[in-house]
């Protein structure tokens, strides 16, 4: 099978697929840590007054860990680590990444960052300044260990930048003969675009958090008005990265969803070239909208107005992508296997997430709902839940290629729908109490006792979601050891990772370097029929 045999072969591997699996393991560990802290928070908020802890600081630590670890430890590593590493080189017919050693460095830096982040649960002065780390709070002693926060972000940032350079070079220079730019899978385009965004924006984030520690420990005054600095400088720099970061997550999971939909509907991507250019359009569009995270932060009025407009413009590329996604189903031949169930759930979550973003784009509406549960619910729908559903669907989709075995369809589908229902029961009620004023990041809500029943309902939703996640994890473990043997192309996909590789792709990915015929496309179902033009290898 070509899997490493000794532990040395595992640890020192340069194989992009094994490195991809390391990324997947890191992201699943992060998901469990951050998910547990979410459950603890929901239990705490399920009833008025102290429930699990009487110390708001403990709650704030859970909240900080939940946000930071879910984004930086789960979603970005799962999408730009696992999918980018495992899938993209095979999709473009490459035998590995462009720089395998740099790739190994990236994954070990990621693991270092995650271990550092877990240290935050152990150190006595754990950082509780939220994943946003706004000064001056993050520069006070109340916030805990700011240096640890800066270090985690910088280590993860270096890992991201190395990974981004590597992946961009791989897509540009490692494509097999016969695969042109307009013959790439949507996953490849989306991951490529996301990595270009990482290259542009991550350095800004790293600089902004480095200045926090310089301020706090060495007495610089970048963010200290007393020394001529400015509090808002941080918010501008931070969101200059962190809004594009939303698309760094969104685009890859849309890409995977496109591929899963194309495979199970046996259709090509509707208006492919426009979808590709809409994806690329996110780079300029996302660079000039950060102020919508700070509409109430005291920035000048003209800037609020201008960025209300630029924020609304996000709907153009996003709308085109959604249109392509829906129309790819049109006249399709849709088969409902587990990955497709997750993606259908993702799609409806994404519609809710996307449409609830429109009011937030208007600065005037933000004056009423800023930093409330409206915002919290919106970004969970558009990024957290949709993203997680696409990631889990993608893991089921590649499960046969990762393990050589099939998972249980029944368990997979039940987990998808429990997750979908559970998360709606969490985030739906919270959206509506958000409109009525429930603020984010509250340990308790004595001033709004009327919201208690909705909070309790949301806590029930977390219980449903948790059962779904446990069934999902069990179905993976069960499939890994007890599942039926898989074939090389269980979904009759036309994409290279299914048509030209072994059941579990070995070192070098392809038994012989693939050369694609004229006019080949990963989505050419109509020309070749379901069996595929090139025989699947066993």
């Amino acid at each position, binding site marked *: 099978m070509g899997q490493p045999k000794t532990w040395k072969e595992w640890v020192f591997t340069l194989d992009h697929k094994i490195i991809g699996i390391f990324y997947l393991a890191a992201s699943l560990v992060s998901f469990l840590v951050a998910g547990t802290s979410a459950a603890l928070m929901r239990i705490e908020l399920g009833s008025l007054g102290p429930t699990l802890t009487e110390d708001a600081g403990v709650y704030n630590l859970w909240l900080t860990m939940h946000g930071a670890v879910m984004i930086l430890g789960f979603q970005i590593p799962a999408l730009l680590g696992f999918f980018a590493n495992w899938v993209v080189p095979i999709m473009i017919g490459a035998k590995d990444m462009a720089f395998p050693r740099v790739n190994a460095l990236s994954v070990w830096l990621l693991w270092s960052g995650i271990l550092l982040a877990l240290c935050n649960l152990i150190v006595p002065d754990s950082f509780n300044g939220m994943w946003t780390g706004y000064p001056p709070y993050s520069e006070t002693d109340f916030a805990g260990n700011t240096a640890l926060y800066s270090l985690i972000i910088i280590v993860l940032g270096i890992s991201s930048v190395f990974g981004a350079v590597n992946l961009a070079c791989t897509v540009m220079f490692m494509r097999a003969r016969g695969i042109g730019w307009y013959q790439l899978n949507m996953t490849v385009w989306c991951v490529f675009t996301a990595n270009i965004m990482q290259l542009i924006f991550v350095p800004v984030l790293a600089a902004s958090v480095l200045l926090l520690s310089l301020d706090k420990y060495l007495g610089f005054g970048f963010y200290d008005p007393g020394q001529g600095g400015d509090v808002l400088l941080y918010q501008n720099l931070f969101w200059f990265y962190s809004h594009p970061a939303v698309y760094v997550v969104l685009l890859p999971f849309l890409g995977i969803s496109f591929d899963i939909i194309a495979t199970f509907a046996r259709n090509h991507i509707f208006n492919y070239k426009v979808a590709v250019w809409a994806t690329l359009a996110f780079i300029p569009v996302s660079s000039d909208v950060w102020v919508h995270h700070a509409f109430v*932060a005291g920035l000048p009025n003209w800037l609020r107005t201008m960025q209300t407009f630029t924020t609304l413009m996000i709907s153009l590329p996003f709308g085109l992508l959604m*249109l392509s996604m829906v129309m790819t189903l049109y006249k399709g031949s849709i088969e409902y296997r587990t990955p497709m169930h997750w993606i259908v759930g993702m*799609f409806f979550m994404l*519609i809710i997430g996307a449409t609830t973003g429109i009011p937030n784009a208007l600065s*005037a509406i933000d004056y009423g709902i800023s930093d409330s549960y409206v915002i919290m619910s919106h970004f969970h729908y558009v990024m957290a839940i949709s993203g997680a559903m696409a990631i889990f669907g993608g893991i089921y989709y590649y499960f046969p290629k990762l393990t050589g075995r099939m998972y249980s369809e029944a368990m997979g589908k039940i987990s998808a729908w429990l997750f979908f229902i559970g998360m709606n029961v969490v985030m739906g009620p919270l959206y509506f109490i958000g409109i009525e*004023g429930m603020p984010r990041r509250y*340990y308790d809500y004595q001033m709004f006792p009327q919201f208690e029943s909705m909070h309790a309902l949301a806590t029930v939703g977390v219980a449903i979601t948790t059962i779904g996640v446990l069934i999902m994890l069990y179905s993976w473990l069960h499939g890994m050891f007890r599942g039926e043997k898989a074939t090389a192309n269980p979904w009759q996909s036309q994409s290279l990772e299914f048509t030209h590789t072994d059941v579990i792709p070995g070192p070098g990915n392809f038994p012989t370097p693939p050369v694609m015929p004229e006019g080949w496309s990963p989505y050419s*179902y109509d020309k070749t029929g379901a069996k595929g033009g090139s025989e699947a290898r066993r």
Partner: protein
Amino acid sequence: MSIQARAGSMALMLLSLPLIPRPAQAVQVVPVPGQSRQWDVPPHVHFDELLHEVFWDITIIGVLMAMVAAYFLFAYRRRFPDEVGRLQKLSPQAALGWMIIPVALFMADDIYLFAKGWELHKQYREVPENAYEIRVTGAMWSWTYTYPNEVETYGELKVPAETPILLRMSSEDVVHSHFIQQYRVTEDLMPGRVTYMWFMPDKVGEYVVTCREYCGAGHSSMYGKVIVMAREEFDAWLESEAAAISASATVASAQQVVSPAADVSARDFGR
């Protein structure tokens, strides 16, 4: 490099300045006095109207999209194992049309919403000339309100009804955010800058104020209330408070002659 090329690159750099976060710093927000137009309703009523309208807008978009998707998901189920999708390739003209028409539709909706939002934004940010000004100071974890005659209250913002209230706000320590649920208005407070908000208390009553920017362990207990009083009642309250202060200040300064230690308490009270 020719003069034209230099001028061109200079102009390009200048035009790209708004794209860079730093220059956004340079401007301090100041209240824009005097409304250019009279509004029929106060901002928070206008807010509810606009929010209602936007909810209709997004519900229609979302439900349409979901219904189309649900129909496709149902209608195009696989009927036999070897069936493949029959989606036709678009001609270049059709591909262009499928881009331009949706973009035009989204753009039309965006511009409509932007215009509506801008109108309300202006109402929120342009302060009426006759506004009554109160200073707000946020600190971990309390609100201090200072009236024009130096009377101070803590956690209770008492205001006269039917008078526009302008709050000039700053923070002593970290970033806080002053949110009044009834008046749908939020604005951050921070050290080193003065921010503002205004609202129109149209009905007598008590409403919740909360902090909306994370500020540490006491964040969720940093709440207070707005107490809207009839004008006469408010004036009477403010006068009695002012009288109380000057009385105690007189007492304090009299005591100062006897005991220098009393100075501390007098200063503390006056702060």
